[in-house]
């Protein structure tokens, strides 16, 4: 699905990302974890061709993301609230996304209904613009926007941020369901290990722009491989 080769990116002569090789297969639900400044968002921005790599290339279905635009037709993404169109209501925003996917009004309406419980009736039926919603509700609109056109590949940067505990749980379930029902490839970054480690089929640990661990398995394996890393990190910091 996605192939990364020799990607490096530096800011002010400081290397923030260096990934010699990384392959993402169709149907994987991958969690990207790491401390602040690990390079998670930079990696996502490179995948979405929002920034240019210093070296290397990223291929989506065999085509380079900075050369071809075909990836846009099967990739849904939500990076942060600046990627929303704040002057639209949530319904208008979803209508717009549906129209870009050449959906009819009936199809759009049916698709909106599917996310009704997740988004909440207030968000869908209210007249509030996205910019006037709370951060949590904006986050939900962004996540639904990324999933709306049933893309084959989904990129979500910190989707659990700003969400209340119920919404976090719902987001986790939503992603797990979409993954199991449709074999969508999903790439999620988060600091919330509890949620991430229970739904992912693979977890990648980034630190200072470098992949430290790339683990496939279940919650028990992640607990041992990933959680232990952060626990050790915390212990080291407390000793200092």
């Amino acid at each position: 699905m996605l192939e990364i080769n020799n990607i490096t990116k530096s800011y002010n002569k400081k290397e923030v990302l260096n990934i010699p090789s990384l392959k993402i297969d169709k149907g994987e639900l991958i969690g990207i974890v790491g401390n602040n400044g690990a390079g998670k968002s930079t990696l996502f921005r490179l995948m979405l061709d929002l920034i240019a790599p210093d070296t290397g290339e990223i291929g989506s279905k065999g085509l380079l993301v900075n050369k071809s635009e075909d990836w846009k037709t099967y990739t849904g993404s939500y990076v942060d609230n600046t990627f929303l169109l704040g002057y639209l209501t949530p319904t208008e925003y979803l209508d717009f996304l549906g129209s870009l996917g050449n959906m009819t009004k009936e199809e759009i309406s049916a698709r909106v209904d599917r996310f009704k419980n997740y988004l909440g009736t207030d968000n869908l039926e209210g007249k509030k613009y996205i910019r006037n919603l709370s951060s949590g509700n904006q986050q939900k609109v962004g996540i639904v926007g990324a999933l709306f056109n049933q893309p084959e590949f989904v990129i979500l940067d910190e989707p659990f941020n700003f969400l209340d505990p119920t919404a976090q749980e719902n987001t986790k379930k939503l992603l797990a369901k979409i993954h199991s029902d449709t074999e969508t490839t999903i790439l999620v970054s988060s600091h919330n290990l509890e949620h991430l480690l229970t739904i992912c089929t693979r977890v990648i640990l980034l630190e200072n722009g470098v992949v430290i661990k790339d683990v496939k398995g279940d919650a028990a394996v992640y607990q041992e491989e990933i959680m232990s890393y952060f626990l050790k990190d915390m212990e080291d910091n407390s000793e200092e």
Partner: protein
Amino acid sequence: MNSTLLNSFIQLFKLNWLATKRESGKEIKTASTILRGLSLVFFFALAILWSVIVFKQIRAGELNLHEGAKIVALALGPMLAYDFLIRISLPSYILEELPVLFTLPLEKRHVILFKLFYHGVGPLVIMWVVLITPILGSLNYFNVGILGYVHAFLIMLLVFTINKQVIVLAKNYFSKHKVVTTTSVILYFLVVFLPLILYKFDAVSQAYGSILVPLNHYWPTYLILLLLLGVTLSLTYQLLRNFKIDSLGDDGSDNSFQFNSLTKSERWSKMGQLGQQIRLDLLFLLRTKKMRALLLVILFFTALPIYTILSNPEERVLSSLNFPYVYSAIMFYMTYVQYESISMEFYFTQRNHMVTLLKSKYIITTIATIPLLIAGIVCFLYRGFDLWGLIALYSYIPGLISLFGLSMYIFNSIGINPEAKTKVNKSFSGIIFLFILVAAVSVPLINWIISLIVGQPYYENLTIIILNLGVVLLSPLWLKLIAKSMNNRKYKNLEGIRNSLN
């Protein structure tokens, strides 16, 4: 991708229409729209009257075509320069929304073409074209009859569109390609502005080489202008094509201008609260790229009085130097106001500290514009001219202009996207226009009224100096009043920020 160019245009047009319709900061927008409308009607009526007079005089043989062209240069030169300088301080929206649009299933090419189309002309361009068309049309009439008005409209539309494209390019290229951009802008100035300035000052008024004479040879003019437009548009196309999200933002990662000596110096703390505030403001000015650029613009403004005085020393300072003196201070304030909302210091400061904040900005603006006065005095020593007129004009900066400028903070219900740091909410342009119109129109108006009442230039200058000195002396009072009004509008303004940011 399935979407056709037309479909993409329709979708994007709908979005932009909604974005404009739903801008926040309505009250400022309404006030500026009304003022803009009124001034446009007034100046349009004036332009028509002027063109009728020129037309009649040429027909009666009292004025030849060359002199007529000089009148057009008199109007066109300042318009082009004013347009160019306004755009330096106005935010450029062409990069706005590109990150989100580039990740949606829309072809990049369609998005870029739409951006070029949508941002190509704009209300400011239309305003200039409408104002200049009657006078150039009247001149053209004597060459090709009624068709001359159509040519005047089309040619001026092309000229001002190119002017806009050049500044859009310069603003967006400047951070990365400093040498190329600076050279291009200087060349552009030399080609477009210099002949107009020279024409205005009679140096080449009879020469065939002036820009206005070729304007009457229509087809070659169209060809050259279309070529220029093509070059600027294709460069902008490339700029947007290569846009990356990390090119947004101000200094961001650029730490080369830290001015650490300012932070370490002890003398500011000795000056008390005001000193500390001035230090903070100076750091803000020097560490922010756009503000540093503004300081350069002030230097450019300084060159204008030198040139004007040296080329025409007998001309009245009050009328010929209005533009550089008044506008440099206006630019300073409007850029200051633009950034204030991001610092949020106005909202989290103690009430009694608000006056110090305003005072600091007042002092810095007055000091930053002193090069204008020095430049004038140097010219006076060299050539000798109306020194009192110059001082009278400068007195507007700490006087009425500062009163207008700082009053703009009362309506600080504007927002800046904190993610992008430098992007200004669209409602902000409303406040800028309001300020420009009030300040730029009122200064010549006051001068005119005083000259009508007083009559003699000496007393006229003296009256203006006394008037502005009064404003300066009363500054503790009006600064307090502004601070009080700001506090009264605090919640309204905060709602404005919430509405524009969230």
